[in-house]
C-alpha cells in the first residue's frame, strides 16, 4: 500500500466515522468516552497499525503509522497511534499470556477498562525492587497481601498493574511477578492520600487477601522486574518528563517575561536584588528549553543525547527557585492562602508542589545517580543487597 493510498483510506474512514469538529475529551486511566468509535478504529486497523496483522495491527512501518496519526490529529479524532501511546495495551500485548491477552488488549485499545499502577510502596520508593507486597499461589489464583501508595485512579479502576513478590528466597530483583489485578473486589481498600498541598491526586491501596487468577500474570513467575522495566519505559516514552511537572500557577502571566510581570504587579520590579533573581530563574527556564531543543535535534539526527536525562533535574531547580522568588516578590502576602489571595496561593502551592518533581518519579538524588552512572559512565554505588536472598535484606 502506498502512502497516498493509506492517507486516502484513513481520510475516508474519518469522513465516514468522525463528524468534523467533534471533540474528544481523551483517555483517562485507561477509560475513553469514545469507546464505540475506538472499536471502529480498532476494527479498521488504525489503532495499532505497526503491530502484526494477527495482533490487531496491519504490520505497517513506523513512518506509515505516523501518517495515520497525522490524519487523525488533523481531524481531532482519538484512537490512532496507540502502538506508541497506550501504556496499558503495550504492556499487556508484550507480556500477557495468550488467553488473557486476547481478552484484555481489545478492551484496553477501546478504552473500556479503568486502569491504575500498583508499583510504589511505603517501604519501596527509590528502591522499587524492594517491594514487599506478596502473592501466594492458591489453586488457580494468587492471593495478594500488602500496601501500595502513590496510585492514581485506583478507586474506579478495573485492573491494577501490580508488581509484587512471589519468591522471598532469591535476590530482590528475581523474586518479583507482575499481574493485572482485578480492583473491584472486597480485599482491596482504596483510600485517598492527602498531599502536603492539601489535594488528593493519589491513593493508598491496602490489599488484604485479594485474589488474582494466575492467568492474569504477565510473564512468568520471577519475571516481574523485567516486565516492570518495559512498562516503565513505555510510561516514560508516553508521558515524558514534562508530565511529571506540576500544574502551574493557575493564572498569571506566561512566557519568558512572566516573572518580570509578576514583579511589576508586586511593585518589586525596580528592586535590584529582585531583578538579579528574576534573571537567574528565567535563565534556568530558558536554558532548560534550549537544552531540550538541542537534545531533540540530536535525537532527530539519530544521535543519543545526554541532555534528555537532565530535564527532570533542571525542572526541579526551576520549580524550587521560582517558588522562592515568588515568595520574595510577595513578602508578607506569602503568609496567606485561599482564593482571595491567588498570588500567595500560587507561590505556596508551587513551593510545596515543587517536591512532586524533586521527589516524585525518582528523587533528585536518585536522578543524579542515574545521570552519573548511565550518562557519564561513573561507577555504580556498591549494592549490598543485590545478591542476598530477599528475606535477609535489611528493611525499615
Amino acid at each position, binding site marked *: 500500500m502506498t502512502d497516498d493510498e493509506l492517507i486516502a483510506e484513513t481520510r475516508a474512514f474519518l469522513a465516514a466515522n468522525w463528524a468534523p469538529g467533534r471533540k474528544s475529551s481523551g483517555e483517562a486511566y485507561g477509560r475513553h468516552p469514545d469507546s464505540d468509535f475506538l472499536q471502529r478504529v480498532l476494527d479498521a486497523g488504525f489503532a495499532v497499525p505497526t503491530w502484526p496483522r494477527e495482533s490487531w495491527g496491519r504490520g505497517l512501518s513506523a513512518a506509515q503509522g505516523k501518517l495515520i496519526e497525522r490524519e487523525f490529529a488533523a481531524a481531532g479524532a482519538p484512537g490512532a497511534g496507540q502502538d506508541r501511546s497506550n501504556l496499558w495495551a503495550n504492556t499487556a500485548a508484550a507480556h500477557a499470556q495468550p488467553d488473557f491477552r486476547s481478552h484484555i488488549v481489545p478492551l484496553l485499545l477501546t478504552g473500556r477498562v479503568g486502569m491504575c499502577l500498583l508499583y510504589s510502596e511505603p517501604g519501596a520508593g527509590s528502591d522499587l525492587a524492594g517491594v514487599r507486597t506478596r502473592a501466594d499461589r492458591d489453586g488457580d489464583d494468587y492471593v495478594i497481601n500488602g500496601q501500595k501508595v502513590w496510585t492514581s485512579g485506583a478507586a474506579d479502576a478495573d485492573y491494577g498493574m501490580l508488581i509484587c513478590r512471589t519468591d522471598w528466597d532469591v535476590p530482590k530483583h528475581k523474586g518479583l511477578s507482575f499481574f493485572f489485578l482485578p480492583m473491584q473486589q472486597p480485599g482491596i481498600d482504596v483510600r485517598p492520600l492527602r498531599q502536603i498541598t492539601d489535594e488528593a491526586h493519589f491513593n493508598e491501596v491496602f490489599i488484604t487477601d485479594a485474589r488474582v487468577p494466575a492467568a492474569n500474570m504477565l510473564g512468568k513467575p520471577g519475571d516481574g522486574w523485567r516486565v516492570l522495566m518495559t512498562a516503565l519505559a513505555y510510561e516514560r516514552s508516553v508521558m515524558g518528563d514534562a508530565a511529571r511537572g506540576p500544574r502551574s500557577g493557575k493564572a498569571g502571566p506566561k512566557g519568558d517575561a512572566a516573572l518580570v510581570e509578576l514583579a511589576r504587579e508586586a511593585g518589586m520590579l525596580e528592586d535590584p536584588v529582585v531583578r538579579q533573581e528574576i534573571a537567574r530563574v528565567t535563565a534556568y527556564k530558558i536554558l532548560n528549553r534550549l537544552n531540550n531543543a538541542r537534545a531533540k535535534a540530536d535525537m532527530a539526527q539519530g544521535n543519543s543525547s545526554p541532555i534528555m536525562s537532565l530535564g527532570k533535574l533542571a525542572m526541579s531547580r526551576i520549580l524550587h527557585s521560582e517558588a522562592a522568588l515568588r515568595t520574595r516578590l510577595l*513578602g508578607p502576602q506569602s*503568609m496567606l492562602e485561599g482564593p482571595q489571595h491567588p498570588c500567595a496561593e500560587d507561590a505556596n502551592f508551587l513551593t510545596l508542589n515543587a517536591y512532586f518533581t524533586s521527589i516524585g518519579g525518582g528523587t533528585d538524588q536518585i536522578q543524579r545517580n542515574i545521570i552519573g552512572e548511565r550518562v557519564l559512565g561513573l561507577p555504580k*554505588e556498591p549494592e549490598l543487597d543485590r545478591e542476598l536472598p530477599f528475606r535477609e535484606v*535489611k528493611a525499615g
Partner: protein
Amino acid sequence: MAIGADEMQAFLDGWQRLLAARCAEADVRRVMETPEGFDRALWGEIAALGITGLIVAPEHGGVGGGATELERVMEAAGAALLPSPLLSSGVLAAGLLGALGDAEAAARLLPGIADGSRIATVALTGPRARWIEDDVAVTAAPAGNGWQLDGAAAFVTHAEVADLLLVVARAPDGLGVFEVDPAAVATNALPAFDRTLRMADLTFAGTPATRLAGAIPAWEAVEAALDLARVAIAGEQAGGTRRVFEMTVDYAKARHQFGRAIGGFQAIKHMAADLLLESESCTSAARHAAERLAAGAEDAPQAIALAAFACADAFVHTTAQAIQMHGGIAFTWAHPAHLYLRRARADAQLFGTSDAYRERFVQALEQAR
C-alpha cells in the same frame, strides 16, 4: 534577669514537660483546625507556669525575665509548633506596655496579660507591611475626652481572639499608642498558609480609643517590643530547626532502601552534615541576639538583625531540605514536615523579610565602623 541559672533550667524543664504532654503533633493538628487556633485550657496552664508573664515585671504579676529567658522558652515552643497567642500577647503587647512607660496603663493591663486572663495584641503596620514607622496607616484625632482612630492595620496577629488591642497611630503631635476595644473594630480574618497562625486586617473608622502616655517616643517603644519579638521568633526558629533536623536524622537512620539505611548514602549524609551547621548556627544566632539584647549592648541591633535573617533562612532551608531528604512520605499531609515548613515561611515574614534584615545588618555594620 530575675531568674538564676538553676531556677531557669527547672523552669524550662517544666515548660518542656507541659509541651510534651499537651502539645504533641496530634494536639497541634487538632488545635490548628479550630476557629480560635489555640487551646484555652492549655493557655491557662501556660499562664500558670508563668510563661505568659515571662517578661512582665514582678510588680505587675510577671516573672521579670528578659530576652535570654524568652529565647529559651521560645526554642521549646518552636520545637513543639505551639499554636498560641503567646507572641502577640506575652511578647509584643507585654513588651510594648513594658517599654512605653505609662505606669497607670501598665498597672492596669499587664497583670491580666501576665496571668493569661487577658489576651492582647498590637496593630503596628499598615498594608505595606514592612513593620517600619513609615508604614503606619492609622491616624488618631482627639474626640471628646478621648481619641478616635481611622485607617487600616495589616497582619495583626491573633486580633480575632484578643481582648485588648494596642494600636500604633499617627496623632497630630506624632506617633502614639492607643488602647482599643477589639469589639469596636472591623476585623477581616486572613486565611494563613501556616494553619497554626491567626492574623487579621483591621479597619478603623472613627473607632474610640484611649491614648497611652509614653515616657519615650512611641516608635522607640514599638522597636523595643519588636526586638523582643524578633528574639522570640529567632528562638522559635532555632527550636523548630533543631527539631526538624533531628527528626530527619532519625529518619535517615531508620529508613532503609537498597538494603541500607539511607543516611549511609553520601547524598543524604552530606545534606545532614550541612544542616547540622545550619541548625547550630541558627541556635548560636538566636542565643547571641538574646544575650546582647538582655545586656543592653551597643551591638544588640546588629546581633538582632543577624539572628532575624540567619534564623529565618535556616528554618526555611532546613524544613525544605528535610522534606527532600524524607522523600515521598513528607509529601503527605499526615507527615509533620510540612507543618514546620508552613511555620518557617510565616516566621520568615514576621516582622520583616530576610532581605530587609540583611540591609539593617549592613547598616549596623556601617555604624559600628
